[in-house]
């Protein structure tokens, strides 16, 4: 199953999905895309209108689905002006960069024998196009960490670590630099 946001399909099936809604479609011959659930461009979808399709609504649940990996993968479904204020869509290259960071983080917690379900970051799309990894709130009452995967070519990662006493901001390019931040979050440095 793959997800498309398209008006061409919905225009022909008004009872099934309204304009600009994400819809899941199932087709007999599935095109191959890297990365599983993949949003198609409008032109791609139009080309697939020749297939007999089943259409039903499966809009990604950004409110209750907190799975970090799934949220990262579904950033591709956010199209231009997704925030209503003119935000641009996320590129696959940008999301891949965030997935690389996610992999390093997951590996760190697994290697430390810590439950990733507890230490998994909350992922959120930023209005300026960055991707937020957040360890904050009730799960992390003493130390909070935010890492932003920006669209900048140099030093694409920014961070903010904060506790009750102080805040510290910085940026880095090497993914390995995230390890000291995670160690700080856990209170081990």
């Amino acid at each position, binding site marked *: 199953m793959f997800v498309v946001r398209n008006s061409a399909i919905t225009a022909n099936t008004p009872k099934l999905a309204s304009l600009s809604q994400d819809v899941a479609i199932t087709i007999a011959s599935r095109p191959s895309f890297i990365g599983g659930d993949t949003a198609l461009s409008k032109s791609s979808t139009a080309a697939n209108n020749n297939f007999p399709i089943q259409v039903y609504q499966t809009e990604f*649940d950004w409110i209750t689905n907190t799975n970090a990996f799934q949220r990262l993968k579904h950033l591709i479904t956010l199209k231009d002006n997704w925030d209503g204020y003119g935000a641009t869509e996320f590129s696959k290259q940008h999301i891949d960069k965030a997935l690389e960071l996610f992999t390093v983080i997951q590996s760190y917690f697994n290697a430390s024998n810590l439950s990733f379900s507890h230490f998994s970051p909350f992922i959120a799309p930023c209005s300026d196009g*960055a991707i937020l990894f*957040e360890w904050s709130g009730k799960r992390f009452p003493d130390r909070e960490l935010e890492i932003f995967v920006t669209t900048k070519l140099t030093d694409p990662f920014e961070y903010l670590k904060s506790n009750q006493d102080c805040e510290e901001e910085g940026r880095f390019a090497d993914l390995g630099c995230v390890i000291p931040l995670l160690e700080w979050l856990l209170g081990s440095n």
Partner: protein
Amino acid sequence: MTANYQVQPVDKLFRWLHPGQFKWDEMRPTSAAFRDFYMSVDIAELTSLKASYERAKKLKKDAVASFKAQLALELKQKIYHCPTQICKATNESVCMVDAECRAYKDDTSVKELTCTNAAHGCVVGNKTNSVIKSFAKTCNVEIFPPEQS
């Protein structure tokens, strides 16, 4: 075009939230919602929460946060009243307030404009990660996103 409103420190500003920017289990917005050099808002003095929310829903935004202009000013931001205007010829938003804005056009390049949101304002300035966190921590949530079934 009517004269632009001078935003006062006591003014309340509405900011729409995308569901992905809201942490539902803690009922709070994240910093992600405020990370924008040109941060659009609705000026409460010029609209109502209900009207702002109706505009948000049309764009599939189903939550609204608010903060006082005083907060933005304390965080070294500038606040402009810049009504959303759409150029009839190109269907693009046009800003005529800030020459640095990505939507800026001078008077001579656009002719027919349609105002779609007279209460629109812009919180302009460099927003460090500390600044956007301050917005997220300090704002009030006026309308929470509905839980999806």
